[in-house]
């Protein structure tokens, strides 16, 4: 079956612009996670959804970052007033009910470059 998909695969934007990154989880997976991976680092947790609601958004770095999942499937990560420090690969993962943190399946990521 299809895995987690993310679009776009690459996004280049200018400092100060607004960007949206999309994640399509595996069908039937109720949990969805966003991580950010900087060069040479491991993924860093941003936010976790269980269904439509954000169960844990403690990893969002500031109020320029926001994520939604209005129908409990597709999620969009939104970044306002982008800064050069936001350049990273943004990873999305999903897991099935009952598996939780133990089996998170990752998408290929969106590589964001802020010029």
């Amino acid at each position, binding site marked *: 079956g299809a895995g987690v998909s993310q679009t776009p695969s690459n996004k280049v934007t200018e400092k100060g612009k607004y960007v949206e990154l999309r994640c399509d989880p595996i069908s039937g997976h109720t*949990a969805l996670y966003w991580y950010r991976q900087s060069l040479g680092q*491991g993924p860093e947790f941003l936010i976790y959804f269980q269904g439509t609601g954000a169960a844990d958004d403690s990893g969002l770095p500031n109020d320029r970052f926001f994520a939604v999942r209005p129908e409990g499937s597709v999620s969009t990560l939104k970044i306002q007033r982008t800064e050069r420090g936001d350049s990273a690969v943004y990873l999305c993962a999903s897991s099935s009910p009952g598996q939780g*943190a133990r089996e*998170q*399946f990752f998408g290929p*990521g969106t590589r964001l470059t802020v010029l």
Partner: protein
Amino acid sequence: QKEVEQDPGPLSVPEGAIVSLNCTYSNSAFQYFMWYRQYSRKGPELLMYTYSSGNKEDGRFTAQVDKSSKYISLFIRDSQPSDSATYLCARGANFGNEKLTFGTGTRLTIIP
């Protein structure tokens, strides 16, 4: 101190060798431990997870957890060039806290 410490490498070994990858963690509340493999420009792929001390084996891969010393290891036997990737260790806290905390990753190259 980072919650999960991992030697970033890089690590190069000849084909067929046994590879040992290691991580330490600082919070004894950590219950679940995972190893992910990440190829260049791809997302991480789950290799193994374990939640108890001791060894867990899956084919050529063995995950080892020592909770008394807060030390986790991944061993790869009969290493292949296709094993060349970055290996990430991760921990999850008690069930219900779903976020994973990752190490920095170790870049491994298997030399044919």
